[in-house]
């Protein structure tokens, strides 16, 4: 099961002359935590896409990889 702890965000809302909210400022460390959550979410999604991908190990992986590198250089 995937779950998240609630992220406490100390935000300061910037308003225009009509008191309409136009921007939010948050502490840098909280920004970094949000960035981390987004990064992990995106990376996990990319990983899920390869759940059924064929996997190689040892020499088979290295041989396949060298073939890819050679074709990439050629291309």
């Amino acid at each position, binding site marked *: 099961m*995937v*779950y*998240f702890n609630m992220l406490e965000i100390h935000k300061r809302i*910037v308003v*225009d002359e009509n008191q309409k909210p*136009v*921007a*939010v400022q948050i502490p840098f460390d909280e920004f970094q935590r949000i960035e*981390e*959550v*987004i*990064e*992990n*979410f*995106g*990376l*996990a*999604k*990319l*990983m899920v*896409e*390869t759940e059924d*991908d*064929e*996997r*190689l*190990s040892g020499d088979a*992986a*290295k041989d*396949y*990889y060298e073939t*890819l*590198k050679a074709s*990439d250089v050629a291309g």
Partner: protein
Amino acid sequence: MWRVEYTKRFLKELASLPKDVQQRAEMIVFRELNSTNPFGLGYFEKMTGYPEKCKIRLGDYRIGITMDKKTQTIICQRIAHRRAVMTGEGGFTLTPNERLQLRYYVTHGGFLLASAGCSDPNWARSFRLEMDRIFPGQKMKVIPLSHAIYRTVYNIKFVATTHDRRGAELEGLTHNGKIVVLFSRDGLNESHAKNCCCCGGDELDQAEYINVNVLAYTLLH
């Protein structure tokens, strides 16, 4: 002893990396992870909320790994780049080598977000010229408001500049069906600070929301 496996997608992504990053990544995934105690290397960082998944930081790249405890297998699944941002004011030109590197970057998994600081027309003109040189025959196209990039986190129904409220557009260049360059002739740096902007420029309103959407979109696609 733990065994290391690699998805074919991972190996393809690794083979496409710039040489300097590629060499460092090869050392880690082919040699160091196969050592007697890969967990003592200090590379693995747990991904909170995702059991058995962790990542390795490699400069601006992240290696996504699954630890299969049952079979004692370390599975290298993906390697992905974080994002690049270009902005500035005034005209500019890139060197031939910079053009080559930028083309390589965006056609090998990278993403470039570019906007003219203070909506400076000279910078925007230079950027368009450089895109024409880097991608001859390809034109950046307007991204319609129906595109997912306007809805990935925030629902953005219109794009306008802060002061004049004139309509604005985001443009994109695609590669293999995916947006790899996103450009705005109007600045995406609007801070809404008092007496800003220093040059009186008319940047995009909701820039912060657009940037969040772009970041999330590029992570998900």
